[in-house]
């Protein structure tokens, strides 16, 4: 028989600290090796959780549709986010516009588990990103290179993802961003102390963070990949290039068979070192989302933010 343990009051956090950076970054660590899926309603959220997603990103339109529709893309309707929160037990993330701390405050009230200050939405501030230290909810931000990643971390981001080129089904930009970040991390590992000041200047990033990168041989927070991932093989590719987890936006629900593709993408991400498994799960998934050539795009989302 199980004894009942008194649990009527754990609200008295006398000696505990909420929302420390370790707690914020810690959640990102828990998502490592997993797939975060964009979902636009509770039905999709359920499919994502059933397929083994580690988290979902709740939004009104996936990047593919944002691109197609044009206009200003904003934070999702709180009712939609709540509907998705009620559906799943895994973490729920949501996007705020770059610099739009008003939207971020609403997302914090909704108790989303991570806020993505995202270039996929239309930027609200051309000068400043959100001061992420002032929030209890952790933030993830996109980056195209190491300097951008370190500037976002200096503002309080607890997770970095490549920007890639969202909504294109084309992984080439995500690969460029990942390679750029990991190449510079390797170079900094070889740099002398005096060269580090040069790196800080070139990257336009705080010297303390540049030093930290050299000590760790990686970013001070987890590095995930996002933007244009459409197939299990894409996941295996970016994981092998140093991503620790993947965000898949339009790639799942804009494909012919979302359930099968979602499961396959989860398996391929976990087993990215085993091509036999990636081959096995890649069979018979139906059509992937239609891709777009990056050079033919009217809007380059990755150029938003700085």
């Amino acid at each position, binding site marked *: *028989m*199980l*004894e*009942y*343990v*008194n*649990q009527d*009051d*754990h*609200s*008295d*956090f*006398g*000696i*505990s*600290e*909420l*929302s*420390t950076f*370790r*707690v914020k970054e*810690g*959640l990102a*660590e*828990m*998502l*490592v*090796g*997993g797939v975060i899926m964009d979902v636009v309603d509770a039905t999709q959220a359920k499919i994502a*959780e059933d397929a*083994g*997603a*580690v*988290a979902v990103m709740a939004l009104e339109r996936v990047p593919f549709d944002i691109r197609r529709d044009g206009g200003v893309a904003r934070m999702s309707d709180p009712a939609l986010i709540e509907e998705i929160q009620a559906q799943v*037990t*895994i*973490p729920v993330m949501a996007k705020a516009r770059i610099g739009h701390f008003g939207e971020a405050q609403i997302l*914090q009230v909704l*108790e*989303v*588990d*991570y806020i993505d200050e995202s270039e996929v939405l239309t930027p609200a501030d051309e000068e400043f990103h959100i001061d992420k230290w002032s929030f*209890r*909810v*952790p933030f993830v931000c996109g980056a195209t290179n190491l300097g951008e990643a370190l500037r976002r971390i200096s503002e309080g981001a607890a997770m970095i993802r490549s920007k890639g080129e969202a909504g294109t089904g084309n992984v080439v930009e995500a690969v460029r961003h990942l390679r750029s970040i990991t190449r510079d991390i390797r170079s900094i590992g070889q740099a002398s102390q005096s060269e580090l000041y040069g790196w800080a200047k070139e990257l336009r990033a705080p010297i303390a963070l540049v030093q930290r990168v050299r000590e760790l041989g990686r970013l001070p927070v987890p590095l995930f990949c996002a933007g244009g991932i459409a197939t299990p093989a894409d996941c295996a590719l970016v994981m092998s290039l140093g991503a620790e987890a993947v965000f898949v936006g339009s790639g799942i629900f804009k494909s012919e068979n979302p359930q099968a593709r979602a499961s396959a993408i*989860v*398996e391929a991400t*976990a*087993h990215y070192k*085993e091509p036999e498994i990636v081959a096995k799960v890649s069979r018979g998934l139906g059509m992937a989302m239609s891709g777009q050539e990056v050079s033919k795009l009217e809007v380059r989302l990755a150029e938003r933010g700085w």
Partner: protein
Amino acid sequence: MSAQLNIGVLALQGDWRKHFAILEECDVTPVEVRDPSDLSSIDGLIIPGGESTTMSMLIKSSGLEEPLAKMLKNDMPVFGTCAGMILLASKVIDGRSDQIRFGVLDAVVRRNGFGRQVASFEEEVDIEMIGPDPMRAVFIRAPLVEGTGPNTQILARCASQIPVVLRQRNALGCSFHPELTEDFRLHKMFISIAQDSNNVVLPFSKD
């Protein structure tokens, strides 16, 4: 003394690399466990933090469920942190009905029982068995232990008196993440459980 201990780390999803690095520091041989063939050499297993629903599905799809259940039933030493503890528990509330419950810890756990990420916290926890100094415990969307069986020892409670470290025979579980700090004492305790288990033939069998 026995040969070097091989401690497996379930490496399908979650912060398994953190555990792996700590095991290296603790002078045992860590082994990445992703499919059944990885189980042959291990003397114990760590199930890391992560998403228990995802890990559960990946354990099934990689064919690990059956062999692992068998080894755990035969008292293989196992240490589960957060999601890992959820997988070891006998009953899970607010989980998916199809998620794995190895049941080596006779306990009822509620997934995310402390609340969403905004309620995640760290605090000092006293764990008598590892020494007088408290441990900095990091709780992230942590499971809440709501009940324990008569054979489950409660090794520590948090400030609100909720049990946070449990042991039953060779199974150890904690609802926080010792792998996110520099304090390796719980890992060392687990290693000594694994050492004892592998050096000594238990004079009793599991009933």
